[in-house]
């Protein structure tokens, strides 16, 4: 029995040998450039400076989970963890969701030239570097006749300095991120939407389905594969995102709502030249991300055909 199974497996493998040849370059790449450097993670269980040589790292004593304990017992651990998840959650809801809706709305535009103009304009901010984006945010919110305080005072409100206020900081940060990324985010969905057969829409129209029904029954299901994959991909990296934007926009006045794991590690790194602490926190985040991916992959696999693996 087993033998037969083995033989058919072997047959399959030889049958697919060209496919393996296609996979091979990528596989070599991830083993050499992604897995070999992962060996460096051992420093998370030692106590070495950033500039330690390999010999020094090997010679250093193992300290077990010392670095992890140090991080978890930090006075601000829960605050930082909460902020990290708050930012990640908000990004997953708004920054991830907005491009899908925008792409569907763009898809409804029937004038091709207009559609192209909107697409191009919405994706321009992606090329603004974070430094410049931060400058722009400061400018727009400036108490010295920034546009937004001006509008608010014109309508009788009382404007304040929003970036220095814990109530508004997250809104400002998230808006800036969405403004920069939303147009770029639509591209992948537009590519997926372009794959839909126009005859499906026509058939639906003949059946009397209105635009709303068409969107719900045709457009959305047709790009659901891309949405699910994008969701899984985003959730695997979302804990590593937002460092640069936060670093450039935050200030001690709003640490309470803005200090995330990455900014915390950055500040510790400036105080202390510790490679081990950074590596331990990085590993901690990776394990969190792994849990998130495994969980969401399980859920999506259960409710749809799409998943990252399996």
């Amino acid at each position: 029995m087993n033998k037969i199974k083995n033989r058919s497996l072997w047959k399959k493998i030889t049958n697919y040998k060209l496919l393996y040849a296609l996979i091979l370059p990528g596989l070599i790449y991830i083993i050499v450039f992604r897995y070999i450097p992962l060996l460096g993670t051992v420093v998370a269980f030692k106590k070495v400076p950033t500039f330690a040589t390999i010999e020094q790292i090997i010679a250093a004593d193992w300290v077990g989970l010392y670095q992890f304990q140090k991080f978890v017992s930090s006075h601000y651990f829960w605050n930082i963890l909460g902020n990290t998840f708050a930012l990640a959650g908000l990004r997953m809801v708004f920054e991830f969701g907005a491009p899908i809706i925008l792409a569907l709305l763009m898809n409804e535009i029937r004038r091709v030239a207009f559609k192209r103009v909107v697409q191009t304009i919405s994706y321009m901010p992606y090329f603004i570097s974070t430094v410049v984006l931060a400058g722009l945010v400061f400018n727009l919110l400036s108490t010295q006749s920034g546009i937004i305080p001006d509008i608010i005072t014109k309508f009788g409100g009382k404007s304040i300095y929003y970036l220095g206020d814990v109530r508004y900081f997250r809104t400002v940060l998230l808006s800036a991120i969405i403004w920069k990324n939303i147009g770029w985010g639509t591209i992948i969905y537009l590519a997926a939407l372009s794959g839909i057969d126009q005859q499906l829409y026509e058939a639906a129209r003949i059946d009397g389905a209105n635009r709303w029904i068409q969107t719900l029954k045709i457009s959305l299901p047709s790009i659901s594969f891309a949405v699910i994959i994008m969701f899984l991909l985003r959730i695997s990296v979302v804990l590593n995102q937002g460092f640069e934007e936060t670093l450039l926009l935050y200030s001690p006045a709003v640490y309470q709502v803005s200090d995330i794991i990455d900014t915390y590690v950055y500040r510790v790194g400036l105080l202390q030249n510790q490679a081990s602490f950074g590596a331990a926190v990085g590993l901690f985040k990776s394990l969190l991300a792994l849990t998130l991916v495994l969980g969401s992959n399980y859920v999506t696999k259960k409710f749809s055909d799409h998943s990252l693996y399996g």
Partner: protein
Amino acid sequence: MIKKLIIALLLVSLTISSGFASGQDDKSSDEEVKKLVVYGNGGFMRARLRSISTTDEMKQKMHDWILENTGYSVEVIAPGTTSEQDVQKINLLLASGSQLDGFWGDWPDYYAQGAIQPLTEHFDTVGANILPAWPKSSVDALTHDGEIWGIPRVTPMMSSPAFFRTDWLADLGMDMPETIDDMTAYFAAVQAAKPAGDRTIPLLLNPKGVHGAVPMLDGLLGAFTEYGYSNWLDKDGMLKPYILQPGVADFVTQLNEWFEAGYIYPEFASLDQNKIRDLISSAVVGATISTSTDTTATDAEQRKIDPDCDFDLNPAGIRGPKGLAETATPSGYQAQLVPASSKYPEGIVVVQNFLYDNAANFLTSLYGPGNWEWDESKGGEAAVAFTGEYKDYAGDYGWSVSLPAWVGIGKINDREDQNYKQHHYFGISGIGRTPPDVTNTDRGKLPVDAYVLYDQAVLEEEVPGLADLQRMMDEEVFKFIMGSRDISEWDSFVKELYSAGMDDWIESHTKMYKDQRG
């Protein structure tokens, strides 16, 4: 289309492989020459590279000049855009065992881990010109266990004075402020008169400086506390951080009053240096407490906007209930360091010694040949005039950028419309105050524990809450100033500090302080 792409590709790869070829020529050159690799993060080259890059011929010329005079073939690695990038790259070079024979850094970071070697003997044998150029305190800051761990870079500085608009003071009929109350009166008058219209900012206060200075505290705290912005010895014999000094609450209360009254620029918590300089250049600011060069170096721009614009400080210093407001920044730990792995540790000392030897060497290393000349007619024997358009050389070998080196040159005859204030402030214009404003430590207080070394490795071990304490101090002080936390909660804030590990901090620092100060 594809054809064009291929042609473009070929062209590009040709240029690049020719680049390779020239690079390889360097490597195959004479093996007997002693080769040094130096990381150029001294600050000068970074600023220069913004607009100028060294041409190949100029690079060769300068390289040969150093080689002929010192016997070392020096390759300079260009710095990154920020000092954090530099630290990261230096760490990579050290960790990977790449050749590196010199870089700028804080020596205690590297010393404790055995990554650098002392230079004491080389100063005696091949570096006679270097140390005599420096005040004792600058050398003290690099001395530990009887060894000198690097080539000095900084002197004690008064880097965050309060500058006031003298023209506005005159218009308002006021004298140069002498006390905190005078400042309050001046801010009130500026706010009422609005000399620059709606954009008028009575006080631009910078809470984060450069090189570890904190202008907000360095410039003001001394007025309210006995020791200024410094760790201090309490009556119980323990060394405590600045925040626990009696009087800090008064300081915070005063800033909160200024903030509530609208004197302090409301966005002060999140300003970066470029933004600060733009604001000061706009001539709308009545007073600045920031890195001094933000005010002095923008002088020409200020006067373009408002020809009368003129900032000056009170040379006697500002006083408050507890005395002088400013705290000096002691000579820091920054220095040119030599990695333990360097094969020619004396090399960097030899080259620096050559640059320290005379003013011509020094200026050539900064500006390259042909961009400057002596001009005795303009200001005495040691005057320099800069000629022509400054070009072709980004200051790769401009390693001796430091105040003593500049003062050694004597009077710099600068372009009159630019840098007047800057050089006046640094005392190198020949018409500044003596001692120069920047080193006039009589204007403020000296930190109690200057030149005590707090070993980062020990702190990391004994004070696990170090980063938490730092965040708590930064965050809560801002909240008190901006009014989102009431000053009546100051005592509970102090309790929070202790719950975040302040006892560890005090114990560890006291131990190290007493070990070194007896």
